[in-house]
């Protein structure tokens, strides 16, 4: 069997090709939900952390991880969930943020910049036309991780990835 470190590298590589089921332009590694890959002699463990407690994509992701890992000789594969430290949008890779915007989702602000002010007026740029003149339509959007916005200039609605 190939060495432990080679298998760990191979696993990281295939996990980098597993896309988030609801945001298919960002991999689960870029999203920051793969918290660790560890191989021993005859088994490997992948540690995942959920984005939101109730996110329905969590099970699909675990399934996708198993399918992708089948290409790597891992021996037994254990997929475990870790809750602590809790996932934060600050873990999303910088290169993934640009892809989110290109996909039509305004990327999240850093959580320390997003300190809650009631009726807060942080600037969320429209991912379609780039205008800073946008308004919140709803605190929640199509998935638990997003809010709904609308651009005042181009009038297009869009999702904003909530800082979390």
């Amino acid at each position: 069997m190939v060495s432990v470190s080679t298998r760990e590298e191979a696993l990281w590589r295939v996990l980098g090709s597993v896309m988030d089921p609801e945001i298919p332009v960002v991999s689960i590694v870029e999203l920051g939900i793969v918290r660790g890959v560890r191989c021993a002699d005859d088994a490997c463990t992948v540690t995942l952390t959920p984005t939101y407690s109730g996110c329905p994509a969590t099970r699909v992701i675990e399934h996708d991880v198993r399918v992708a890992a089948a290409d790597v000789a891992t021996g037994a594969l254990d997929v475990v969930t870790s809750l602590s430290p809790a996932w934060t949008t600050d873990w999303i890779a910088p290169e993934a943020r640009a892809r989110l915007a290109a996909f039509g989702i305004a990327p999240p602000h850093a959580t320390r910049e997003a300190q809650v002010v009631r009726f807060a007026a942080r600037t969320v740029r429209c991912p379609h036309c780039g205008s800073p003149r946008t308004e919140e339509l709803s605190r929640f959007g199509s998935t638990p991780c997003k809010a709904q916005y609308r651009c005042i200039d181009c009038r297009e609605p869009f999702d904003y990835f909530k800082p979390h």
Partner: protein
Amino acid sequence: MKLQLFDYLLRLADNDLVLAQRLGEWVGKGPVLEEDIASTNVGLDLLGQARLWLAYAGEVEARADAVGRSEDQLAFFRTDREFRNLLLVEQPNGHYGDTITRQYLFDQWHVLLLAELATSRDSRIAAIAAKALKEVRYHVERSSQWVIRLGDGTDVSHARMQAAVDALWMYTGEMFSVDETERALIDAGIAADNAALAAPWRAAVQSVFAEATLDVPADPWMQGARGRGGKQGVHTEHLSRMLAEMQALPRMYPEARW
């Protein structure tokens, strides 16, 4: 201690589970599409949290008497008297102002509770609480904004919000009650001391209500606050009907898989 911990975990889980089910009743019926989505998303967060608490409860139960129930068994095969949620969260949805008021009164307590539990000596409780806290901070932001918008809205919305507050207020005292089960766990550094949450909760509610032009009611007789309420399994008549609907399918087809 293990059975007390099991009971305490059910209290945490059942608040989330019952309120999630109530919010789920709004699916397809929200006053506007955005709020339909928002209330069910809050429900989804709570359901996820309920699952984490129930899974842990089942493991604690297994350690205590070797037969631990699964999340589904605990959710679908307990009767109303075995549920440990607060009376507040089982109250019917009413109109949207009633739902928002119930949500805000609970969220404002929930966020304080989870902040305390995030420092629990039980590391599993601390991890779940820290995760849930991030979600619930967002919930209280939203529900407090709605209380202000509707309270300080039109004459009609104001009157209906004040009526909702007046009707639900008698269920708020239970949130700050402490019984023997909790006392033992508080002393062990595991549970949060609900009595200590009363002052910060009241201060926050007063500030939001002031902005919402709503009056804080005089304290009436507080339902369930004297050691005989939802946390001890003594519920209002609304819970059993809600459970009948929630549990119907698994009870009819106990082996069903989906």
